[in-house]
Every structure is written in C-alpha cells, then in structure tokens.
C-alpha cells in the first residue's frame, strides 16, 4: 500500500473525529437553556405592584446606583424555595441589593412564606399575570439577573443558585461590577 493511499484511508476517521468532537461538546451543554437577548441592554420595563403594599408600584429606577440581583421566584416552585437560604445569606452580606419578583403566585402564600422564613429582598414585585415575567424573558424559574449600577442587565442565570454557583459564577461578576 502506498503512503498516499494509507493517508487517504484516514480521511473518514478524521471527519468522524471532528463530528464526534462536536457531539461530545454538545452532550455537555444543557440545550434547554436559552440565551437571553437582554444581556448588555438596559433593563426592560419593571413596574409590578409592590407585593407587601399592592397600592404602590415598583419602578425600574430601583436598579440604579448599585449592583442588583433580581430573583424571579414563586412559592409553588420548589427549586426557588430551596435556594432561599442562600438569598438570606446574600442579603445579610449587603454586597448587593436583592430585588424579588413573585411570579404567578398567590399573594397570601408568598406573604406567609416571607413571614415564616424571613425576607431577603429589599423590594418585591408581585407579578400575578406573568406579564412582567414575559418582559424579562422568563421561561423557567428560578431565574436570577445581575444588573449593574447603570441599570444594565449583565448576566442571567436560570436554575438553582448553589453555593458553588454563587462563588464561582456570581461573586466574581458582582465584584467586577462594584
């Protein structure tokens, strides 16, 4: 067998290796996560009623002047409830302003939860219809946004914030924005 024939017989192997590499890469990704078009844009409209006092409305000016975490949660969402302790810790650290959006929830359930487990949020919006959520591209809570001092969305995380996620993903980004 000549050298050129031997080399040619490697071509299918090379092609398959390249395709195999992309497969291996894709298998590691959660393809259900959707990239957010809000990144590096000013925050969308944010004027839900205040959960604690529905006669008042929140305003997106609340995101200006400090780094903010906006956490979209609900009492019916068990994963949201399981990341609660970490939000209490984040609030106690006073590192960021923590704003909550109670999404498609029963107001009384939310108030009871806060009363029983404590309130880590500076402000909480009550999105009964889910329309505020639509403005923020919410599709699978819990979802948490990092918003910088100028009110620009810098990062979106879908899923539970574990301690590891907090330390490796959130903390560096937040410190860089301070």
């Amino acid at each position, binding site marked *: 067998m000549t050298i050129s024939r031997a080399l040619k017989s490697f071509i299918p192997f090379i092609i398959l290796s390249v395709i195999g590499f992309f497969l291996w890469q894709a298998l590691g990704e959660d393809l259900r996560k959707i990239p957010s*078009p809000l990144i590096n844009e000013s925050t969308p409209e944010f004027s839900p009623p205040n959960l604690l006092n529905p006669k008042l409305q929140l305003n997106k000016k609340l995101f200006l002047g400090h780094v903010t975490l906006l956490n979209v949660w609900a009492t019916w969402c068990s994963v949201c409830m399981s990341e609660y302790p970490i939000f209490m810790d984040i609030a106690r650290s006073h590192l960021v302003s923590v704003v909550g959006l109670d999404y*498609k929830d029963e107001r009384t359930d939310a108030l009871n939860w806060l009363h029983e487990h404590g309130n880590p949020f500076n402000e909480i919006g009550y999105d009964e219809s*889910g329309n505020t*959520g639509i403005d923020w591209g919410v*599709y*699978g809570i819990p979802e948490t946004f990092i918003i910088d001092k100028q009110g620009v969305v810098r990062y979106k995380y879908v899923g539970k914030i574990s301690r590891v996620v907090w330390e490796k993903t959130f903390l560096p980004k937040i410190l860089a924005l301070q």
Partner: protein
Amino acid sequence: MKYVFLLCGMLFINSTFANATDLYSFSTENQQRQFNTLIHELRCLVCQNQTLAESNAGLALDLKNQIASKLRLGFSSAQIKEYLIQRYGETILYMPPLSKHTWILWFGPFALLLGGCGSLIFCIVARGSEARPG
C-alpha cells in the same frame, strides 16, 4: 361484530383536532388567521419541541393571551414576532430564520447527503473501472 368495528372507529375520532384557537375570539377573520399562523410559528419555551399551538404549558397560554390581545390592538404579525424576539431571542421562532448564520443549519444536511452520495458513486465507478480487464 359490526358494533365492535363501530366502537373501534369511534376511538379514532381524534379530539386533539379540536381547535384550541376557538378559545380566542377575534372580531375579524384576518386576525383569527394571523393568530393561527403565529401560534404555529412560535416555540413553546417550556416544552421546547412543541409550538405554542400544541403546548398547554402555563407560559404558552400566557404568550397566546399576549399575542391575542396584541392582535386585537392592531399589532401586525411582524410586530408581535419582534416583540417576542426582543424578550426571548430568536429561539422563540420555531423555524430558525434563514440568514448567513443559519445557512449551514438549513442546507448542511442536504450538502452532506449529496457529498456522501457523490463519494459513494465515485467509489463504485472507480472500483468498476479497476476491475475491468486490461
């Protein structure tokens, strides 16, 4: 026996053909048609292999309500799609748009198929001409 057949036949009356868009009423037929088209062109982000038309997920119902109310307010289909793409990105389009970024996605499989067939034919012809006696 014919009653057995009749009963079996009744099982095939497929209730999923019942048009879920009957729940949304519009003043003009044009709006109704636009709604039907839109909900088949947009993805449900909860059950991501379904269109909004097929899905009963909470978010799908919310989005259908939003689309219906925007149509009634006079928004065009293009404006409504733009509204959703602004919030959810192009993933919300069930069919990826045909752009210079996505032409590989659209034409790649066909190109690979043609390439594969081409090299197969080439191999067969080449081997055929080798086997022919000198």
